[in-house]
């Protein structure tokens, strides 16, 4: 029980923690007030609770694949907001757009990851004999996820602005690619997209259940057995974001005062 609660909580916390740490480090570097984070977390929490309460309805919808469709949409939304954020960095005077993109991506990530945690924990509230390992496991999972987030945050905060922007953008691009890959996987599961044999099987090399596997899953959307279409969309989304980012960075570096 303990190991699984570690993995469940770690997977959800890590993904949200990475986005949150990169964005709050960037806003610290760019002197943006971090009030947005509180707004994002609060609205994300409310969203997560609402989603968790309605999970039954969602699950039954669309012939039993409502969950996949909603989660895939959430992933694609996070992807779009990260792209919007990268674009808004280009024109720094447009703080509103940047903060909006930050709030939205973090809030949606919290809805997606938080709802799963709530559904998970909720099932054990009624069985107290199982609760202790679940709580300890959750503490370990959350501890690991938050620690990795904190270290990423300090990594970005403690380097020069130019490098911080670059490192932050690279992490964001990878996370965004992972979002697209996950969305595709869900759409395959819901039979919206044709399913094919996986491109490769690297589960013996890096197991998805291991800590490294979980970290890579959250960071670059690692899958040990990716479907071809999943990999294809991942690559396309990476290329698109990288092109947009290079344009952004170029115009960013042309600004002499920064």
């Amino acid at each position, binding site marked *: *029980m*303990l*190991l699984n609660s*570690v993995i469940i909580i770690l997977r959800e916390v890590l993904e949200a923690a990475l986005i949150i740490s990169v964005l709050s480090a960037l806003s610290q570097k760019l002197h943006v007030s971090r009030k947005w984070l509180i707004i994002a977390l609060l609205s994300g929490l409310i969203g997560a609770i609402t989603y968790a309460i309605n999970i039954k309805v969602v699950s039954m919808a669309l012939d039993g694949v409502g969950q996949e469709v909603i989660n895939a949409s959430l992933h694609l939304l996070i992807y779009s907001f990260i792209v919007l954020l990268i674009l808004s960095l280009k024109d720094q005077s447009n703080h509103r757009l940047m903060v909006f993109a930050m709030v939205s991506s973090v809030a949606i990530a919290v809805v997606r990851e938080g709802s799963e945690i709530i559904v998970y924990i909720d099932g054990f509230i009624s069985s107290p004999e199982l609760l*202790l*390992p679940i709580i*300890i496991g959750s*503490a*370990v999972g959350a*501890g*690991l996820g*938050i*620690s*990795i987030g*904190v*270290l990423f945050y*300090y990594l970005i*905060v*403690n380097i020069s602005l130019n490098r911080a922007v670059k490192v932050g953008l690279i992490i964001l691009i990878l996370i965004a690619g992972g979002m697209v890959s996950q969305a595709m996987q869900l759409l395959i599961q819901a039979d919206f997209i044709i399913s094919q044999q996986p491109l490769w099987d690297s589960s013996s090399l890096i197991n998805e259940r291991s*800590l490294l596997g979980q970290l890579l899953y959250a960071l670059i959307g690692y899958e040990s057995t990716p479907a071809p279409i999943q990999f294809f969309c991942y690559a396309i989304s990476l290329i698109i974001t990288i092109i947009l980012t290079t344009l952004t960075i170029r115009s960013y570096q042309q600004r002499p005062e920064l």
Partner: protein
Amino acid sequence: MKSIRTYLLVALLAIITLVTFVSLLHGYQSSISKAQQLFDQRLRNMAEIIAIANQDIQPRVDGTFNQSPTVFFQIWSSDLILLAHSNNAPETLSTDVNSQTNYDDINFNGYRWRTFSLKDDHLNRWIITGERADIRYNLAENVVMASIIPIVLAIPVAGLIIWVAIGLGLKPLTELTAQLNNKQADDLSPVMMQNTPEELTQLVATTNALLERLNAAFMREQQFSADAAHELRTPISALKVQLHNLKSAQQIDEKELQPLADGIERMGKVIEQILSLYRHSPDQAMLKQTEVDLCAIVQQVIARGYEQIAVKQQQISLTGVQHCRIKGNQFALETLLQNLITNANKFAPEGGEIQIDISQTNSMARLTIEDSGAGIPENQYERVFERFYRVNGDQHDSGTIGCGLGLAIVKHIVAFHGAHITLNRSTQLGGLKIVIDFPRRIEG
């Protein structure tokens, strides 16, 4: 980075958590898998004991054995007839005896069971033993949990200890900060620290050297002001007397002497201004600040300079609040107002107008001075505060003697009071509009 202490605490705690929890998970995994191996071994031993203890080769009449509810066994003949079984065992073949592995997992009676099938070659039978998966798993986990819980609970304790330890480690830094903070404005004595740590030695040494040089510079400057005041004023007074004597000699036309008299007058003014400039440099922190009434000071200065204003038949007005208390230096503020009112008087034409207004809020007091003169071109707003700068090279028709130090002094005094000055064109009078905002820390 806002606080070194928070940074160290959070970063250290994150690293400790990461390292501890990763090794904890590894320990957990290997403990659990060891326990599973042990339980599997036990299941096999159980089957082997049954194979020896039970000799049935025909199906039992009474059929069942009583058995604890968490384990079961079955004995099958080679042609798969149930010979004997525990009363909680299924009556069907629970596992595929011909599969490659002896161990299997099945669902039965609402539980998950781990089973082992043993081929009893001696009596040509199959012995199948089973054990509830959840029970044996919980057993193993309870044992491992006992060693995990203290480690997880130790993390917040570690955080507390690290917090205190970092606080102690940073104590010399807080001490140094407190010492520098508590210094009086005019106290330039070196910082004294007991047991300066290696990392702060250089900082303390540099700070003390800096304080020493600053002290020397202050002493020189004070000496200079005093010397200059005495050394420069005396010859000018002497010159004035000699000029007077020269006039009395009546051999020289008084008109020819006028430029000389103006020159001496002007030189005297320059010297006074330079001296007052030195007195009001913002780093001259020795000037004592007290609570003063800005309105009273304005009234005094107007009264003192009224003669000049009357000569040019100008109108001067003071509007706004009656009392306005701010923190400041009486003498410096008088000089400030004197300079500003003199300037206004100088640049406003004959019969012109000067308006002074004082307003206040809880956090600041605003002094506004407007005149009906020609004003200053906008592109010179910055430069007029430079020392010896004169508007349009002082080609203005004020006809008054100036040296270009007035606004430089004003700037010093404004900075000294932590106030803020802005220049503008007066919309009402057409001339210069000066707005000075003083911070107020006094309520009411």
